[in-house]
């Protein structure tokens, strides 16, 4: 893989969708994840999230994987890449995660729409990768690369998300 792609980290691995998502929640997580310091999977909130994902969306899921990214569902007829979320709480983060998927799909000449599906709220939010969105996305990707390049993780900042975060103990020990 070439190193100068907009989504290639200095470790030569591609940016993942999760990384884009976390960029909007906590920059420290971006650093930790990009160094493969993954969170404690037994942490209750994370495990509950995983259980719900396994159970409720299993029938819906039809994952499509590209290097570094995993699209929950691709609706062929509508040419729509879908990201399923449990709530609309971090909608901005979800929007950019999906924009990133659309950006990657475009590389394969797949011009798709994006839908954020929130089954619990019966909502469908449409996301389009237009020129303006792409500019912002490229900036975000670049900043993610910058964070990953830091020698040390950005110091922990206590935010409401910490309470349910699987890194909680790591950050505050």
């Amino acid at each position, binding site marked *: 893989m070439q190193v100068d792609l907009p989504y290639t980290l200095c470790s030569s691995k591609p940016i993942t969708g999760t990384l884009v998502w976390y960029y909007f929640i906590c920059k420290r997580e971006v650093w930790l994840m990009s160094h*493969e310091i993954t969170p404690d999977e*037994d942490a209750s909130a994370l495990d509950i999230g995983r259980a719900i994902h396994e159970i409720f969306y299993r029938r819906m899921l039809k994952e499509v994987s590209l290097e570094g990214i995993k699209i929950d569902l691709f609706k062929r007829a509508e040419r729509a890449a879908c990201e399923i979320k449990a709530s609309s709480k971090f909608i901005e983060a979800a929007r950019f995660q999906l924009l990133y998927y659309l950006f990657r799909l475009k590389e394969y000449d797949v011009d798709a729409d994006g839908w954020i599906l929130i089954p619990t709220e019966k909502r469908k939010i449409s996301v389009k990768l237009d020129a303006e969105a792409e500019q912002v996305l490229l900036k975000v990707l670049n900043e993610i690369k910058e964070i990953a390049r830091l020698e040390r993780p950005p110091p922990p900042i206590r935010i409401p998300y910490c309470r349910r975060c699987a890194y909680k103990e790591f950050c505050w020990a």
Partner: protein
Amino acid sequence: MKKTIYIFSIGEIKRKGNTLCLIKENGEKKYVPVSEISSLMIFGETTFNKRLLEFLSSNEITLHIFNHYGYYMGSFYPKTHYNSGFMTLKQCEHYLDYAKRLILARKFAEGSLRNMLRNVIYYHNRKGGLSSTIKFLEDASLKLREARTVEEVMAVEGQAKEQYYISFNTIIDDAEYHYEKRERMPPKSRLDALLSFGNSLLYVTVLSEIYKTHLDPRIGFLHATNYRKFSLNLDVAEVFKPIIVDRVIFTLTNKRMLDPSCYMEELGGVYLSEKGRKNFIEQYEDKLKQTISYERMRVSYQRMIRLELYKLEKHLIGEKEYEPFVTQW
């Protein structure tokens, strides 16, 4: 928190109906809920096959074997699933760079000394007569700072421990547990038997916690890496021995919870019998579950071990200098 299961029965351990099953000699079947356990400690004569190991591996369960005397023999440490090349490199760097290694070796020894000191102070306040030990341990902490090699750190820690064990003669009310000299191979006294057994349990507990982190258990700092397969768990266990193992021993002995049938003498050594081991494990498990408050969290001692490993990770990535856990009381 997932559980540790201790198997004393004789029989076969199998994967059955997507969970674990122990089939005892008499044909009785005992199922173990696979989703709720993190490690298996095997004391009894059991057989198992490759299929079981694969099953344990996919459920991220570690397995540890102890021999007839309760000695730790080895582990099945499945393919790790928390992998970070970055962290491994950092861990190596802190081993290979002697100055960095010395810093960590000192920290582990310091944690060990300070927790020993807490125990001695606690019993000095209750019973008196331990001021010279307190002085000795305090001096040793100072000497630690001047130690220039890992061997010196080891030596200071070793001498301190010797003095500390002598204080057990005051702490423990039972003359059966008189301390003369620490003997390991084989343990010569009941106290030796308790210490050897308790310490090996703790080594395994720490090892199982390391499995849930990005650290490599083979790279230790105080205990040299070359001689044993695992050494990081020995380092971290030093910090917790006084608080976990020694306190369990104080409870067991002072509350007269062990009778002669809890020991066995074989080949010139004194060991815990099956009954003794079970009594020990019950108290040990209670201690691991006991909670204390720490940084706005309610944390069990078992969890404290994990937090200690996280602190070590943060030290390795250069974020925050590692400070060993020292108990408040």
